[in-house]
């Protein structure tokens, strides 16, 4: 198609001799490439959609026999987990649900306040230079592989805890919670810091103008304004903690039990992820145990998908509100 320039008859206008866009006849190669490119682009882009679909399909396919068997209600109602037993297999998953819950909640209780404080420091208190220096350091914390954290937990922290707290074993829920919170902090800091920064400048200025101190401004004005992003940050940290495998496998001691009393963190627990990682290697394919492990995986997948949708909703609201300010 040819785009000519409309010229006003009274003015002397520049005459364009070349069209702005070549026609398919003039630049057939470019035209063809453009068309092909767009088609291929869309197809390739759809790979992510395909991947998510395949993940759901195949996890569901392998987990389905477990849901068909009579063990489903047992899974949610019993503490006995002996899936490998030939005579009387038991599929009670309460202990591993408990394990996942206690390390996730515990690590969030440590990581959320710390991460939030750090995010407030970075967004409002320190200068731009300090912020530029500190952010990469916190990012490094996120970059260290989880197996290295697990290694540290098993070989350095566990003996330390055992020695200094007088515990029978250093591989316990406490160890796990400490390490998990270190792993969740960078996520919380970076997402919370983003949303705090995107809360408008005029909010802060209005608050300062009313005579509020910095702490008051942050707690009473900025944090409420940025609450969506902060909740999203905590949820993302939670997802990191609940999906973490290597660290909890190496640090938690892996005993399928609910400690007595239930809040005793110095005892060993086992999480859902660690159960899959630890038992899948020794399970024959297409056994009831194998299906049960896939069922655990499916639960993790569905749970993380749910959390993800919540985060996305919250973050889209952050984007909208900051877009309104800008």
């Amino acid at each position, binding site marked *: 198609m040819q785009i000519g320039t409309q010229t006003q008859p009274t003015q002397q206008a520049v005459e364009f001799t070349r069209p702005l866009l070549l026609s398919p006849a003039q630049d057939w190669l470019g035209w063809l490439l453009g068309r092909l490119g767009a088609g291929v682009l869309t197809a390739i882009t759809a790979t992510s959609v395909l991947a998510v679909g395949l993940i759901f399909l195949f996890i569901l396919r392998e987990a389905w026999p477990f849901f068909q068997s009579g063990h489903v209600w047992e899974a949610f109602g019993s503490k006995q987990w002996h899936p490998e037993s030939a005579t009387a297999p038991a599929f009670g998953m309460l202990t591993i649900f408990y394990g996942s819950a206690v390390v996730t909640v515990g690590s969030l209780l440590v990581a959320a306040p710390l991460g939030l404080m750090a995010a407030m420091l970075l967004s409002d208190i320190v200068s731009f230079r300090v912020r530029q220096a500190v952010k990469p350091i916190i990012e490094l914390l996120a970059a260290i592989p989880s197996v290295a954290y697990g290694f540290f937990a098993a070989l350095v922290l566990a003996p330390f805890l055992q020695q200094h707290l007088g515990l029978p074993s250093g591989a316990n829920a406490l160890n796990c919670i400490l390490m998990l919170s270190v792993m969740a902090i960078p996520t919380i800091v970076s997402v919370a810091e983003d949303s705090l920064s995107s809360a408008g400048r005029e909010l802060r200025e209005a608050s300062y103008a009313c005579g509020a101190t910095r*702490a008051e401004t942050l707690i009473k004005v900025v944090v409420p304004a940025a609450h969506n992003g902060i909740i999203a940050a905590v949820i993302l940290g939670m997802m990191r903690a609940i999906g973490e495998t290597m660290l909890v496998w190496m640090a938690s001691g892996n005993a399928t039990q609910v400690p007595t009393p239930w809040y005793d963190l110095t005892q060993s627990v086992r999480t859902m992820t660690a159960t899959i990682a630890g038992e899948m290697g020794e399970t024959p394919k297409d056994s009831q145990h194998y299906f049960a492990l896939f069922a655990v995986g499916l639960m993790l997948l569905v749970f993380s998908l749910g959390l993800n949708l919540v985060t996305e909703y919250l973050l889209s609201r952050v984007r909208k509100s900051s877009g309104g300010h800008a």
Partner: protein
Amino acid sequence: MTVNLRLLLNKLFTTLALLSVLLIVAALIGILAPILWRGGSAVVFKDTLEFRRLQLEQFGRGDPQEIEREVHQAAEVRQRAYDLLDRFSAGLDTKDLQTKVRQVHTQVVEQFAGGDMDAQQRRTKTLSRELRDELLEALDTDDAAQAEQHLQNVLSHKDDPLLRQTAAQGFAVIAEQYHSVIKRVDLKRRAEYATALGEVREELCALLGPRLGDPQPALIEKQYGATRWDAAQQHLDRLLYAESWVEQGQGVANKKVRIPRDEQFAGTDLAALFPLLREHSSEMLLPQWTCYWQYFIDDNFSGHYLGGCGPEILGTLLITVLSIVFALPLGVVAAAHLVECAADSLFTRILRTCINTLAGVPSIVFGLFGLAFFVIYVQPRLGLPPGSSILAGALTLALLVLPVIIRASEEAIRAVPRAYREASLSLGASRFRCFVGVTLPAALPGILTGLILSMSRAAGETAPILFTAGIAMGKIPQSLAQPTRTLSYGSYDMAVGDKMAALAPHNQFGMVMTLVAVVLILNIVAIVLRGRLSKRLRGL
């Protein structure tokens, strides 16, 4: 609330925030420091003569003549220790002596075997049997007086004409030897000495390696003594101090007591061994500082007890690069599509949700998917051998890093100034040409940053390759259809599973240090790259 209180609270708040950041930074240092420091000791450490021998014999490294000279130099000092040990153990090792006594008697009998014996020979045989029994009893008893009595009986037949020219002369030799021993050693404590002597022998072998001339053990780790000076120090400590656990009563943990071996063996020949070891151990092992850079290329042997992590590095590299090769084109194209083509349509929204979902899927679920899809479903249909493979692992990891690459690329493409695009479009380029010719090159550094970050992610992930590609031990893979060792899986296995590795903590830490170093270097490169990029985009 008074103003002062409010200001104080404000200060308090700032301090708390500052403390929390300091705590986070301290956690980073506290975690990295032991890993890097102790891991570094796998590469830079004080080696011993045994290490240099191992390097020479297993890899042909080092100067053979120099090491030969050192071996001789050390052997002189070592011989002094061995002499002391031999002298002491000769008297204690009555089992050995008893066997010898029986052998002597057998020889006597064999001498007369074949044909009829005359009366004299018969008498000799009887006497030999009597002497044998006497000697055995002398060796057996722990009463010095009785032993003395038995020995005297044997020695009284020393010049018996009946025994002349026969193998029975050996009885007298053994008796004399043992006679000199019982004068020095308290026979009552013989059993106790024997146990302690066993420990000393074992530790000495672990410290110095098997004696020259002894048969070489089959296992490589037994063929050499302590290869590192810090390990040697531990063996030395166990040589110089006996450990025993003393009961503290019910419900109380037993207490460890260290007894110097000098005291344990006080008054015996062996007592002189310990001062010798204490003062001359460095002459026996000739320690010197070394940088064992070959740690990064050597294969391990004896289950990570010796050697390096070369195949693990290779495996990590293979699997990481392969996964990036799969993920990069997909990721960049998807990002391009999101920025350039797609408006806020339903498809884009689904796409974004899928990318976010993919980023949020727990890594172990990726592992399960890799197992169910690539290993169990796809591989047999392509005619590949069953079981985990590099290809399956790389594909699984590719899915894992795909969202990282998409997000980074999208950001990079978005950051390209509009003017670039508009200039190119105004010159008549199609959108595709504009993207390939102008936008993509401009966005390349940003995409590269994302690429490096996703490489570091892929290198460190363990859970997805647990069931798809990783093994703890095994040959170096010959094709992509075989599983491989990786740094991440190796770090896990050495920390928890590997018994031999637990004896060599420097190797455990060395493996994880290598992994962390790879990841850190990649990240620091990415951070520096990004810093430059943002400067350029800000026009500095």
